[in-house]
């Protein structure tokens, strides 16, 4: 438990994932999902999704509960048959509606949300379970090596039920990497842990993945996990892909209002695209929104401007911004790391995150500023 947590370089938001990937080992296989559909009785949980994953890549399937992300993962694992479409792992077709390779012969392994540590076996027994095809001495050496990697060597002869949640999750992790799978599947592995432990395990898990270099598919509904760990995020909604992009792009350039709201906190102001395509005329008095990049909609059409609450500036700081609107401070909440400020801009609510030492008072009239580079336009269509 007292292992030093090394924050991997790659979660630093300034380094691009593509560059970071070059200097890590790659042992995994590619995964290609084509037009996958999964039906339970009459309801279709997955309605035709396609994506492909490069060897060694860490891809997250993100979405609210019921969006089909776990079902998709289970289908890749072979625990669920598809009703249409095709899944290819390492160039070999493993699942179509007609034929499915059994899960044990797909060269994948999985970490479950419930840990699924076998209570009637020791930690070493759990981890060594998948190593039946190699000589006993080799298997023992491999188990010892992996237990060392996850920091569980002292617990090798304990039983699963004698361990804490975090330790059980490490057993599950060790059990998944010990078989040297081509792909590791993670089904919300951290959601049963408490907040502090979850953060620590997130770093450990990522560090481990970077060390091993295995292709990873990670399912979660937690945007922080998705943002901090993935090379790429596939955001699902109602069984369809809403957006597929690296974390930074998903955050900075959401493709729809749904994505903008699901990932981070987004302020949205609707309006009509004005001449030039880069400005929205809104119904709010004195408010037009200018973005650095234009909206996709033609001039005169409806569009929605999105900007993040941490990009909102107040008072003098707003001076250099392309967008400056009169605002009234409605509520200020101290949250330790920052101030959560709710403002009224011509009758619409805008939320801002300010440094904890910023001086704002409730009821104060001020100027609100957003740089054009921080404004992004999404279609005005339904949420």
């Amino acid at each position, binding site marked *: 438990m007292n292992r030093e947590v090394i924050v991997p370089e790659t979660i630093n938001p300034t380094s691009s994932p593509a560059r970071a990937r070059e200097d890590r080992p790659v042992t995994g296989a590619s995964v290609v999902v084509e037009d996958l559909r999964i039906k339970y009785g009459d309801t279709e949980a997955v309605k035709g999704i396609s994506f492909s994953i490069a060897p060694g890549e860490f891809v997250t399937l993100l979405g609210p509960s019921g969006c089909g992300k776990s079902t998709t993962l289970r289908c890749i*694992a072979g625990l669920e048959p598809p009703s249409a479409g095709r899944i290819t792992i390492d160039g070999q077709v493993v699942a179509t509606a007609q034929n499915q390779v*059994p899960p*044990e012969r797909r060269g994948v392994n*999985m970490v479950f949300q419930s840990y699924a540590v076998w209570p009637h076996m020791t930690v070493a027994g759990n981890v060594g379970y*998948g190593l039946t095809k190699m000589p006993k001495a080799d298997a023992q050496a491999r188990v010892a090596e992996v237990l060392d990697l996850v920091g569980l060597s002292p617990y090798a002869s304990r039983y699963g039920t004698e361990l804490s949640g975090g330790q059980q999750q490490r057993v599950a992790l060790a059990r998944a990497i010990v078989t040297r799978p081509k792909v590791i599947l993670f089904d919300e592995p951290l959601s049963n842990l408490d907040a502090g432990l979850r953060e620590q395990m997130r770093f450990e898990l990522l560090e481990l993945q970077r060390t091993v270099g295995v292709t990873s598919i990670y399912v979660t509904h937690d945007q922080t996990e998705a943002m901090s760990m993935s090379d790429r995020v596939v955001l699902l909604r109602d069984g369809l892909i809403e957006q597929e992009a690296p974390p930074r792009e998903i955050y900075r350039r959401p493709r729809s209002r749904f994505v903008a709201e699901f990932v981070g906190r987004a302020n949205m102001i609707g309006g009509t695209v004005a001449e030039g395509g880069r400005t929205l005329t809104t119904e709010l008095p004195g408010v037009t929104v200018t973005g650095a990049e234009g909206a996709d909609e033609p001039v005169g059409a409806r569009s929605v401007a999105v900007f993040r609450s941490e990009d909102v500036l107040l008072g003098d700081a707003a001076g250099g911004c392309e967008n400056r609107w009169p605002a009234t401070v409605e509520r200020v909440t101290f949250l330790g790391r920052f101030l959560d400020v709710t403002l009224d801009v011509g009758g619409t609510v805008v939320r801002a995150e300010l440094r904890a030492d910023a001086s704002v008072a409730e009821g104060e009239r001020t100027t609100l500023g957003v740089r054009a580079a921080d404004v992004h336009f999404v279609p005005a269509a339904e949420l």
Partner: protein
Amino acid sequence: MPTLTVVLGVAVAYVVVRERGLLSGLVDYISTVPIAVPGIVFATGIVWLYLRSPLYGTLTLIVVALVGVYIPHAARFASAGLIQIDKSLEEAGRMSGAGKLRVIRTITFPLLRPSLMSAWILLYVFAMREVDEAVIIAGPNSRPLAVLAFSFIEAGAIRNSAVIGLLLTLVMLTGVLIARMVFRVRLDSSSL
């Protein structure tokens, strides 16, 4: 006889609880039917069926009948145990490269063992004291203790019957005690 019943019960329960579709429904239905048939009727059916076979009048036939009668009980025990085993425990086995049979042998069965032990003991006791079916099927050379006691009573030999009854009680008591002490089986309602 309890062993055979438990094994069959597990098989039934596994199909019913873990598999989907028509087969599971059919197996569930067929394995529950014996509950709805009175013992006398069931036994008469068995006798008719096996009348011309060499099994007629043997202990084996009694075993066959009792296995049939008690499969529903065994299946209930097994499925109660199976439902409590999280599916992901078995799926984790598949993910580690084990086939279905290895998973059943090394994960499902060991985890199911406590419920199967209590099932075994209960069926052992049921079978020992069973009269309904046995009294019809029993032949001169194949008379369980319970049936013997019954026939003594019928003949008015109460004292002989009492001796058999006492013996029977002792045998069952020993079985239950061994189960409690050696296998640590709890025969409370939670395992039903």
